[in-house]
């Protein structure tokens, strides 16, 4: 949800800066269908029933999730000519790195889950608990490899959309922000009309 809000906010900010949504139509995306296939595949895991996992154990789900990230990597790399896409790719790589180092899921500490008020998404907050509506798994900070790349930033409960996110998420959102700004603002000041 927080990623969608960030994307929508990017569009609103560009509009306030005098940009036009129509400006985005000129951006030519390559391999877009690969990104859609990869994300649809991920949704199977994101919305599965929360379960207790064996920490660090790799199964077909973990391999499939990593495979979807590789597909997304191919799609973002194919579009690296677009402004901001390099940052999206970097964010993806950072998330992929920390997930691959921790058994295929994004680690999040029990404290962060509690602070965000999202404990109801997991069967328990014991290490290895998968959280529904996410790619996250509960891990203690001490047992998390590359901890600084995991979900460490908390938007706590009183915030309307409480969440926990990573440096990689921030990089991807920044990349999408730049892409939207560049696309929507490119006709500003050039007398752009619908017919051009």
């Amino acid at each position, binding site marked *: 949800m927080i990623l969608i809000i*960030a994307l929508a906010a990017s569009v609103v900010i560009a509009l306030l800066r005098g940009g036009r949504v*129509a400006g985005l139509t000129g951006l030519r995306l390559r391999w877009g269908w690969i990104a859609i296939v990869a*994300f649809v595949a991920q949704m199977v895991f994101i919305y599965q029933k929360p379960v207790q996992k064996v920490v660090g154990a790799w199964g077909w789900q973990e391999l499939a999730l990593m495979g979807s990230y590789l597909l997304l990597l191919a799609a973002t790399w194919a579009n690296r000519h677009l402004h901001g896409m390099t940052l999206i790719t970097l964010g993806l790589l950072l998330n992929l790195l920390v997930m691959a180092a921790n058994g295929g899921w994004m680690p999040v500490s029990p404290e962060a*889950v509690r602070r965000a008020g*999202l404990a109801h998404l997991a069967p328990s907050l014991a290490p290895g608990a998968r959280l529904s509506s996410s790619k996250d798994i509960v891990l203690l900070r001490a047992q998390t490899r590359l901890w600084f790349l995991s979900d460490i930033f908390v938007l706590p409960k009183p915030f*309307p959309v409480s969440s926990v996110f990573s440096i990689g998420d921030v990089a991807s959102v920044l990349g*999408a922000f730049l892409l939207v700004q560049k696309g929507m603002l490119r006709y500003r000041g050039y007398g752009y009309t619908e017919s051009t």
Partner: protein
Amino acid sequence: MMRRLQLAIRGLVNPNTVQLFWLLLVLTAMLLGAGAPLAFGGGSGGHG
């Protein structure tokens, strides 16, 4: 009424509209696919 409906449908199938819809769809898939926040489907609600 019919005229308005026709214009609305024409607007929807306009190549630029389709292109815009496709771009936003792909960009959303890339962002959601690359990101791994907790939680995807909402935060403050009781059911994620």
